[in-house]
């Protein structure tokens, strides 16, 4: 049989001008960190160094918080709400104008496919600013009473899996509600946040309203523990989230926490099988599985398991792994050596504990960090790969016989972020959705995001919501 090979279709990197070094963005200007300390960020698909960025010490965080406090009390909280909103509209427009530049830079710094940064990350980031811009002068409708007030200075710490998108989830609602921010991007993916700082300059955003400090966990800790920060918004691991909950106990700080997940993707026997296969693929292989709401546990009704797995394996065999800048790439690079080691470690426990591993034939590039799309069958609920978040392209397959059993297994986790339901029967969708302990439920679809749609988890997946009216309300103090 004749087969057609894909020709390489790399996106040009000429649109991106990476500077040789980046400072911290404090009070509207790029400044070096204390003592000129820096760290490097690399392209995880090639292991090549992209540039150096400043490493913020606690004293740098102090300066950023002071700038944010001054901007809050002198400028941002006094500005008419409609004018505040116009700045967000400006930012949304500039992000759209520079979308391709952001997409390429994000792919280089993160390792995710250009198809995703171009079609999902960057457009959604711009949409978040546009959506929240329109909220700025309508806050009395946010559901927290007739005279909502901002918290003041918000400290925000974001992860590496959706760098610019997570920045927009954090900064857009904070600014729309009249707060000012100090944001720390993840250590391995600082570059689009620093490019965003340039967008703030182009938008002529008042100095100090947005401050971006790059660094590692110690920088994040300095933000969380800073006495002049009023609210914390964090996206990341459940372990760090619990640490934040402890750190702010007994303080005036409130917190929004978006933490880990182990989403159940439930397939009933009457599911439309081809659409379901696509949904399972999107659920676990989107963004290399570096997704807190990934559908990482497939719960399939026992009598259709064989048929489903056969089709699923055939579809996984068609996934194209490789150069993230190639427009035909489906699965890009794992974000870091550390994350790759973690994926290996938990996956290996699946072998040891008796699950059966399967991956397609797959040529991985010699340089960079790579993991093939992988599924484990014969998984039991006690296996680590059924309980722990792997945060990689690894799917654990479990079975069930009755809808009640599906619910019991789906909810048998300390997490409660997302879940999927695949069935043709409407009443079964609503019954299942009602009984699932999860904050986001995708029925006959998966991994869809929108600024108007609240996102966040039950149980140990976090506190509060982001997006929609509910997410906005988390940035406001009501009179209750």
């Amino acid at each position, binding site marked *: 049989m004749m087969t057609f090979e894909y020709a390489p279709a790399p996106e040009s990197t000429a649109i991106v001008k990476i500077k040789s070094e980046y400072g911290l963005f404090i009070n509207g200007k790029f400044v070096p960190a204390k003592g000129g300390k820096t760290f490097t960020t690399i392209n995880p698909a090639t292991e090549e160094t992209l540039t150096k960025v400043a490493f913020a010490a606690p004293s740098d965080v102090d300066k950023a918080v002071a700038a944010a406090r001054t901007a809050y009390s002198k400028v941002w909280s006094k500005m008419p709400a409609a004018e505040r909103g116009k700045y967000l509209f400006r930012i949304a427009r500039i992000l759209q104008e520079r979308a391709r530049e952001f997409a390429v830079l994000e792919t280089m710094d993160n390792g995710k496919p250009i198809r995703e940064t171009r079609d999902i990350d960057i457009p959604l980031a711009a949409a978040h600013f546009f959506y929240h811009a329109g909220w700025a002068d309508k806050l009395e409708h946010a559901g927290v009473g007739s005279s909502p007030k901002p918290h003041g200075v918000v400290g925000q710490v974001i992860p590496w899996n959706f760098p610019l998108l997570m920045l927009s989830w954090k900064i857009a609602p904070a600014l729309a509600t009249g707060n000012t921010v100090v944001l720390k991007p993840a250590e391995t993916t600082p570059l689009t946040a620093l490019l965003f700082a340039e967008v703030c300059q182009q938008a002529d955003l008042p100095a100090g309203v947005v401050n971006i400090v790059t660094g590692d966990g110690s920088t994040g800790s300095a933000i969380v523990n800073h006495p002049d920060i009023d609210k914390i918004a964090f996206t990341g691991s*459940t372990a760090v989230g619990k640490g934040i909950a402890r750190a702010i106990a007994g303080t005036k700080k409130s917190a929004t926490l978006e933490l880990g997940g182990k989403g159940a993707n439930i397939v009933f026997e009457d599911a439309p099988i081809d659409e379901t296969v696509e949904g399972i693929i999107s659920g676990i292989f989107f963004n290399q599985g570096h997704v807190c709401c990934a559908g990482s546990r497939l719960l399939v009704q026992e009598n259709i398991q064989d048929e489903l797995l056969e089709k699923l394996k055939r579809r996984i065999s068609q996934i194209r792994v490789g150069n993230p800048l190639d427009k035909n790439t489906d699965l890009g690079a794992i974000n870091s050596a550390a994350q790759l080691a973690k994926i290996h470690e938990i996956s290996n426990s699946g072998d040891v504990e008796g699950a059966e591993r399967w991956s397609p034939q797959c040529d991985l590039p010699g340089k960079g960090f790579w993991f093939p799309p992988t599924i484990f069958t014969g998984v039991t609920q006690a296996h680590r790969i059924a309980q722990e978040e792997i945060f990689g392209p690894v799917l654990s397959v479990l079975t069930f016989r009755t809808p009640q059993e599906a619910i019991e297994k789906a909810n048998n986790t300390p997490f409660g972020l997302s879940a999927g339901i695949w069935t043709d029967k409407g009443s079964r969708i609503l019954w299942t959705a009602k009984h699932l302990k999860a*904050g986001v439920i995708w029925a*006959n679809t998966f991994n*869809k995001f929108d600024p*108007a749609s609240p996102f966040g988890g039950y149980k140990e997946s976090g*506190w509060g919501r982001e997006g929609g009216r509910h997410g906005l309300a988390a940035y406001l103090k009501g009179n209750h």
Partner: protein
Amino acid sequence: MRIDVKKTYKLYIGGAFPRSESGRSYEITNAKGVFIANPAQASRKDLRDAVVAARSAFGGWSGATAFNRGQILYRAAEIMEGRSAQFVDEIVAIEGITPWAAKKQVQEAIDTWVWYSGWCDKIGSIYGSTNQVSGAFYNFTIPEPVGVVGAFAPQKSSLLGLVQTIAPIIAAGNTVVAIASQKLPLPAITLAEVLATSDLPGGVVNILTGITAELAPWMGSHMDVDAVDASGLTAAQDKELRIAGSENLKRVSTFKSELSPQRLLAFMEQKTVWHPIGL
């Protein structure tokens, strides 16, 4: 001359009125130091039993229709109204306030049940939403009860503070393990008698009397308690409970307003559901 038949004040767990498994009680006196009663001093084990009862009752209560829950909260108001005189006497005895002030407190407590009764079937339409996402999807968000809630009633109010604490928690569809005011616990047990005769399923409300400082750490570290109303705790107890509660990320709240839908929403999770639109 007739000798009064005095009441033994016990705990309220799973719809029954047991003594503390520890066999302990503690002495309650009025403001002038005169002995009133020896209510049960709940232990860690009693608290754990109450959480088990609350968890067992959660499925039925959260699965009941909101209209049904609303009627049961209203029924509690009806039964309290008939028992007003008893509550007034107890509040006068324990708080040392005038009968007039005690009567005001009882009436306000009854009206609190009525107010929260009406919220049961409205919280979803006011605080849920349909979300206009960009794409061919139907997308809605609904508030759902968080689960088992631990509640520390305000220390300074024997009856009203407790009702203001419990009513919104169960109106939202949660079940509750409530710790009564340490020094003013007796009307709480009489309230339990009201609830036991109000068609409220056993285990939806559990009420413990005892030493707040002894029980708070166990509530904070209990992994099957989803959320806590910490209103009745000191700042130090509140902080300690939040630190222990971080282990399962308990939702811990205190409140400024006695009557507010935020008292329901603090103990609810927002669930968002997506479905494609197509032929």
